[in-house]
Each structure stands twice: as structure tokens, then as C-alpha cells.
């Protein structure tokens, strides 16, 4: 058997299995979305970046919210409450800060002390020092942050590469379901997943998961 060829794949499997930090706990995560995340769940103290879909970002709140936890949405002036409620988010336990202005980062830190999962969007560039400060607070208080947009040192970066709706024709029908091609970049490497959304739930199509033919982002 060729050891040099087997080594990288073994290394990757070890990477997938072991958590990076000690004392990480898994937070309730929608089962349909767990294949997207390393370790199969949102972890306390971690930050996740979602690019290209608010709905996908909000879906990460659902399971925690169903379990009675408080969640937050920061920096989304156009929050669609009905869509969020139909996803399964309890609106009375979902704190909104539509327009945090220049306080966005410090508020994300403040909210993470009490809210289990926070979805946030930051307009300004975030410096690595600020990132580190927020991560420390997340770890301390056992919460997770889902950032809409870019974030350095995120646990996982999900990018919607392509989305396709179905149900709508040329002058007839209505939007019913959608299929997203999501690229995940994390310690498992870069992969492409097919995520479908219908009946207000996201599910990852396991068969279509492919290793992206790209180099792993460094």
C-alpha cells in the first residue's frame, strides 16, 4: 500500500474528528443543516460566516429557538418576521437590533452574553483584534455567532454559489422550493453541498456532496 498517498487522507479524517479547542459544546442545530458544519453542529464559542442568503443564516437560529433559548438578529433592518416565524423561530424570544450603527461590534459582544445564537451583519471592516475579543466573549458565555458576510477566522464559511427556485413559470405558479449550491470551507476542506429548501425547512442532499476541485483556502 502506498503510504504517502494514504497519509493526507488519514490526516484529514483525524482533523475532521477532533475538535480544535477543549471544552467545546454543541448547540442545538437544525438536523437538515448539520452536514454543512464541521462536527455536525454549531459549537459554543465559534463564529460562522454565511454569504449570500439571510434565510440560510436565520435557519441556524431555529433549533435553539425551539428549545426555548433566546436568539438575536443584529443589523437586519429588513427582517421578515413572518418568514422567520414560519421557519420556526419564536418571535417573542428573538431580539432584534435593526440599526446598530457604529456600535454593532460591541453590541454583538453584549448580546452574546445572554443570547444563545446571534445572527449579525457588520457594515464596517472588523479588525483581527476585535474578532479575537468577540471570540473570547463567545467562548466565555457559551454562545455562537453567525455572521452574514465575511469574517476572518470563522469556524466554517458557507457561500451560496448558485440558487435556483422552482414552482414559478412564465406567468403562472408561485415560488415553492429552492435549491442552493453551498460551498463550505472549514477544517474538513472545501466542499460543495446541494441544499434544498421546501416546506420551510432546509435539507442537505447527502449524495451530492462533492469535494471541490479547488485547493483548500489558506
Amino acid at each position: 500500500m502506498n503510504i504517502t498517498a494514504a497519509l493526507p487522507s488519514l490526516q484529514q479524517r483525524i482533523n475532521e474528528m477532533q475538535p480544535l479547542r477543549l471544552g467545546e459544546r454543541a448547540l442545538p442545530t437544525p438536523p437538515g443543516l448539520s452536514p454543512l458544519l464541521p462536527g455536525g453542529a454549531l459549537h459554543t464559542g465559534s463564529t460562522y460566516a454565511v454569504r449570500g442568503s439571510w434565510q440560510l443564516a436565520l435557519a441556524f437560529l431555529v433549533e435553539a429557538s425551539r428549545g426555548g433559548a433566546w436568539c438575536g438578529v443584529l443589523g437586519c433592518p429588513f427582517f421578515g418576521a413572518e418568514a422567520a416565524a414560519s421557519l420556526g423561530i419564536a418571535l417573542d424570544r428573538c431580539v432584534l437590533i435593526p440599526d446598530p450603527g457604529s456600535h454593532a461590534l460591541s453590541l454583538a459582544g453584549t448580546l452574546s452574553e445572554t443570547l444563545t445564537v446571534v445572527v449579525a451583519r457588520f457594515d464596517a471592516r472588523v479588525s483581527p483584534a476585535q474578532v479575537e475579543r468577540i471570540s473570547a466573549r463567545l467562548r466565555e458565555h457559551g454562545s455562537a455567532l453567525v455572521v452574514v458576510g465575511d469574517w476572518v477566522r470563522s469556524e466554517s464559511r458557507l457561500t451560496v454559489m448558485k440558487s435556483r427556485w422552482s414552482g414559478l413559470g412564465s406567468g403562472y405558479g408561485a415560488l415553492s422550493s429552492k435549491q442552493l449550491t453551498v460551498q463550505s470551507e472549514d477544517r474538513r476542506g472545501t466542499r460543495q453541498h446541494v441544499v434544498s429548501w421546501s416546506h420551510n425547512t432546509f435539507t442537505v442532499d447527502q449524495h451530492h456532496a462533492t469535494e471541490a476541485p479547488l485547493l483548500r483556502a489558506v
Partner: protein
Amino acid sequence: MRPERVIVVRIPEWEEHTLPPPTATPTETRDFTHLLAQLTELVPQIETLRPGLVAMRARGPARYYGGEAEAANALLQVVHAAGSLEARVGIADSRFAALQAATVDSSDVNGSALAALLPSGDVRIVEPGKSATFLSRLPVSCGIDERLGALLPGLGIYTLGAFAALPEDAVRARFGPAGVLAHRHARGLDAEHGEEIRPHSLARNFDTELHFEPPLESAEQLAFACSTLAEQLSASLSEEHLVCTTLRVTLTDDINIRHEREWTHPRFFTPSDTIARIRWQASSLEASTGERAGAGVAAVHLSPIRTDRAASHEPGLWTSGPDERIHHHLSRVQGLLGPAGVGTTVLGGGRLLRDRQVFVPWGVAPHATHSPGPWPGSLPFSQPSLVFSPPIRAQLLSAAGTIVGIDEDDLLTEGPHSLSIEHSNIPGQVQSWSKPWPIRERWWEGRPERFRLQIELTGGTAWLLLGQTRDTVIHWFAEGQYD
């Protein structure tokens, strides 16, 4: 056990047109306490059901005045002396029956037997043991909760007597505890666990006031100066085992301009909540005064508009309200962003998406919004994850470059080809679209029609458009985005 006789006094001029207590305007509630205080000198234990309607036990006054009729007359005299022209007294075996005796007009009840029960126009005494007979002639709609009141006539039950004749077990099985309560009321009984008269002494005036010389200019100064005032208010309320749920804060300028605002609290006001409301009001004053900025506040007046028994607000074993920690943190955020900076959303009714969700600032009790009942024309499925409020201007063009309109058959005049949305640089080629869904409201008043349209663009984004006809030209707006 003999049922307890109950006296209910009704003073119609204090009552509002509609029944629930919140409609009573605060000034009336407050002024009614003066009258209540005078009545309390006659009969010490009085429960206010709502302004203008009080209940008390009949046994004590009847013994003191030597009869129920005499007691009723004594009460009427006090009410007339206080300047109220009209008042009714009802005395019966149960609270419900006494309430009906005081409120129901004799013209509502057509029965000769009842006329015998009416000694005079203002006092109606239902003899002991006759309450069920008295009630049996009343229509079911009076006094019973609205849902049952609407349901029972549909089942062929028009009077309380007919309802009372039903077996209690059947009522329990069909209508649940609320039905049993109504059934017991209809039979002239109190609730299963009794309905005691619970006097609360709102006779005491809890208003507190603080004057400043010279006037204070900054909201922070004011908040600091008011901390003892808030503590005093809270202490005096808790002496009476009360908590305040609605508070009116009045700030008076140095030139005697008053700025009043009522604040409601989802739970009750603690001193720090009170100070926060004073600070918010003062800072909104600073922001709004414009040219007269810096006028300063010369006096602060706090008056609890609505109070509640403290016992009903005790924290449960498993805290029922939101976590203290969350409240603490969100209050801090409010300190940073202002009172409306943080909150939750409540779903309401309406046709447009933005009407259907209401942002409720933290620490404010949500307003009663439109009923969530059926709204024809609202979007029944797949709500967009982003809702623009107000909708963003958009342009929907056909292949020829003209604006796509809607014809008399509610169909698009041309196939849409490109979509552009203000402040957005999405690739605008239309891939597929839905049939226009009309929203017709008040067409009899000539309100223009509106249309909804779902559009999917080649890039994979989908939008919900709103078309509004104005002067035969259709204007397109983006109402939401499926993101």
C-alpha cells in the same frame, strides 16, 4: 351555605361606551377615586370593577342601615351628593346577578314578573333565592363572554334560563371551565371557588412630584435627580401591595410647557425602569425641541395610571417573565441606542407584509394590533425573508423597454424582461414570473387596486413586487426579497 348577598352600584356617566376596563381614560380613573373615597366612608370594603361600577358585600350595610333598600338609598345619596345625576343599585344573591340587576335596563326585559321585583327605578333588589328566576329572562348575550354569547343562540338557546336548564356535566364537557363559570352565573351562583369582594384602596393618591430650581438641562442629570422620586413611588405602592403597570410621566418646562407621555410595561415598573422612562422622555424632548433646545425641565410629575395587585406579579418558581439577565442586557443596549433601538416583533393583521409585523421596543407592552383573522389579499404562502418598509421603488420593463402594465383581466400587458431596483445592482434579467395577484381593498370607495407579482431573476434571486396603479400608470415597488 347561604349565598352572600352582593350590592353593585353603577354610575353610568363614569362608564365608557365599550366594556373592557382599559378603555377608561386615565383622568376618569383618577377622578373616580374621589367618589370611591366618599363611598368607602359609608362601606369600607368596596371593589372597583371598572370606573363607575363597584361591588360590595350587602350583609354589613344592610344590618347597619336596617335593610337592603335603606342601604341602597344611603349609597345613592352619597353618589348624588357627589354630583352624579344617575346611579343604579342592584342587590342579589351572587355577584353576577347583582351586576345584571344594576346594569340591565328594564326595557330589555319584557316580563310582568320582573316589574314586581323593581321597588323603584334606581334600586333593584332581587329577593333572596330569586336570582335564578331574575336571570332566566335575560338574553344569553348579556354578561356571558362573547364567544359563548354568539354561539348559544346558534344552538337555539336564547335566554340565560334556557342555558341554566342544561345539565352542568354536559356544559362542562362541551364548553370547558369557561362554560361552567357562565353556567353557574346563569343559575345565580358564584364561581365554584367563590367570587369574593376584593377591595383595593385606590383611594390613595400615589402621584409624586419633584421641582427643580434652576431647571435641569441634561437627561442624565434629570435621571440622577429622580432616583429618589422613583424609589418613593415604588415604596408607597408596595406599602399597599400594588405594582404599577402603566405610568404617566409629565415633564414641565421652565416656561410651563408640559410634556406628557404614558408608558406601559409588560411586567411592572421597578425604580430603575421608571428612571429609564424619565431619561428617554427627557432625551426625546432634547432632540425634538429644536430652536428652544436647552429649555430644561423644571418639574417632574409621576402618576401611576394603572396599578395591579403585587401578588399577581410575584415571580413563579420557574420564572415566567423574561430572564433578568436578558432584561438587564437589553436595557443597557437601549441606553446606547435609545428606547426604540432594540425589541422584538409581533405578528399582526393586514394585507401588506410590512403591516403584518410590528416592531415592539423592549420594555413596552405591545399595542393591540389588527386582528390576525383572515385577510383576503394577504400573501398566504412563502413569505419573503426580507421585507422592505417602506417598499423600494422598482422598474419592471418589457423586452421593448416599456413599463409592464396590467390590463382589465388582471393579466400583465407584456412579458417582463428586466427588473431594476433602486439602490441595488442585481443582474436584472427576468427568468420567470407569476400571475399578478390582485389586492382589492375598499374598491367601493375608489381606492386604486394593487397587485403582487413574484419574479425570479436569472441570477437566482427572487423578489416580491407590489404594483400600485396611480392615474392609470402602474408603479412598481419591491415589497420583499427571497434571500
